[in-house]
């Protein structure tokens, strides 16, 4: 698949000397949803701001749809819509006027029909004549999305779109994102919420301390996450694995045994393991299962990174 955004050796050092991005390379494929995960201060917003032209990169290049975002900034920016993290809206203006303004700012001729369709898809149509300041927080977030979509962008950046949003609205947002993907819009979202990345992304990137640690297909990550372990606590500790159990992938840990298995397969082997444990004369006191989640992978990656730094 073609890359719609290409980031090469991007660095950003702020005036105070803070190095927010350290040589970032990132390819975003046309039509995908990519989630950038990372702790606070990882550089997610700086990366997005640099791509969208809000901050100047210290070095490196960014191209959007083949257009350099500095030398051909008009062509590059025409393709991009941005939903910022903060609710930055003109409070005294009507919803529909702020959306019209955004469309005009991007050089598009007025189109009430298109703006109507955007507002309707975001359930904002009946609020179109309300002043922005009269809306709830969730509604304001929708207005931000409507503004970002007002000029029919091909690439949409969502900077923590569901931070501080209730569960229902979060689900609504995911639906909106899915709909946009159907329409062929490429979506880049940053988030703290692992489940959000799991729910909607095609690929997942992890960023920490200004570096991209990994970018992987969600499916591959899910396979890694499919590994589960069963912990069997025994009444009496054993020093070696009994002969009858050698066929199982077992390790001794403390007073018990650890068994790794794959939840995605038809047979997990748990039933026969338990039967064989009994045959071997081992007494069980407790059973626990554990799944390595994306969150654990993420936390260990970030911890390694920050430990090394």
């Amino acid at each position, binding site marked *: 698949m073609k890359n719609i955004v290409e980031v090469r050796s991007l660095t950003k050092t*702020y*005036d105070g000397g803070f190095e927010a991005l350290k040589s970032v390379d990132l390819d975003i494929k046309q039509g995908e949803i990519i989630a950038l995960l990372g702790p606070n201060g990882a550089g997610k917003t700086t990366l997005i701001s640099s791509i*969208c*032209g*809000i*901050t*100047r990169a210290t070095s490196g290049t960014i191209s959007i749809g083949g257009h350099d975002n500095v030398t051909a*900034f*008009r*062509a*590059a*920016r*025409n393709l*991009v819509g*941005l939903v*910022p993290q*903060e609710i*930055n*809206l*003109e*409070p*005294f*203006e009507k919803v529909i*006027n702020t959306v*019209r*303004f*955004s*469309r*005009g*700012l*991007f*050089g*598009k*001729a007025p189109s009430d029909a298109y703006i109507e369709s955007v507002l309707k898809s975001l359930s904002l149509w009946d609020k179109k004549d309300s002043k922005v300041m009269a809306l709830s927080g969730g509604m304001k977030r929708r207005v931000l999305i409507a*503004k970002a979509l007002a000029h029919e962008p091909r690439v949409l950046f969502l900077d923590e779109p569901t931070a501080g949003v209730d569960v229902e609205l979060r689900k609504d947002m995911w639906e909106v994102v899915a709909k946009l993907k159907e329409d062929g819009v490429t979506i880049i979202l940053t988030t703290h919420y692992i489940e959000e990345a799991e729910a909607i992304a095609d690929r997942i990137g992890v960023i920490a301390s200004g570096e991209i640690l990994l970018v992987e297909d969600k499916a591959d990550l899910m396979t890694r996450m499919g590994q589960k372990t069963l912990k069997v606590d025994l009444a009496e500790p054993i020093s070696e694995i009994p002969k009858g159990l050698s066929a199982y992938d077992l390790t001794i840990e403390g007073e018990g045994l650890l068994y790794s298995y794959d939840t995605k397969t038809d047979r997990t082997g748990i039933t026969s393991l338990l039967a064989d444990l009994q045959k071997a004369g081992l007494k069980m006191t407790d059973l626990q299962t554990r799944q390595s989640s994306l969150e654990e992978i993420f936390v260990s990656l970030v911890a390694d990174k920050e430990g090394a730094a």
Partner: protein
Amino acid sequence: MNFQAIKSIYIFEMARFFRTLMQSFISPVISTSLYFVVFGTAIGSRIESVEGVGYGAFIVPGLIMLSVMTQATSNASFGIYFPKFIGTIYELLSAPVSFFEITVGYVGAAATKAMFIGLVILATSFLFVDFTIEHPIAMIAFLTLTCLSFSLLGFIIGIWAGNFEQLQLIPLLIITPLVFLGGSFYSVTMLPPIWQTITMFNPVVYLISGFRWSFFGTADVSIGLSLFAIGLFTCICLGIIAWIFRTGWRIRQ
């Protein structure tokens, strides 16, 4: 050139003006009326005439300039400071617009508002005093240039300002005194010689003098010098804005 963007910024800014039309309209009318009552009628009745013009009429161009300069500056500075303050500036920075287009949109809207207020004051003046405008085209030209150049100045202040206090600082500390001491309410020739010389360093003198010439055909300084002064002022403001945009100073990190 992204004309659509210029139009959008202009319309959006004018909408702010129309939302507060009553304040925008009533406050200059009231303050002008007060000036006429105090200076024109109460004090003016003791002053026969200045350079052959009745004092009430004499202060009309000065009053218009006083309001136009302060309004243009405050409108333009607020216009660009407000998006910075509430954060909506992100949209301007991420849009396919050049800084030139942004300036035209904001400065154009601020100048229009100032022009509107100037014309309202002019209309109000006719209720209080009797006068004719000798050079109406020159009058409109001077008014337009003043609106534009002071809106440019306001735009710079709005970009520079880091808080609302700073936004008020320059208009309060510099523009108002310069306008008051720039011959709004008197002719420069009425001052003692030493002050006449000092006054010549005040750029506002040239603007008010030129504007007054378009009304009454008399001026403190030659009309050519007035035009040169306002042209120079506009060029300096444009130069500063060009520098701001090239460096992204206080706008783009």
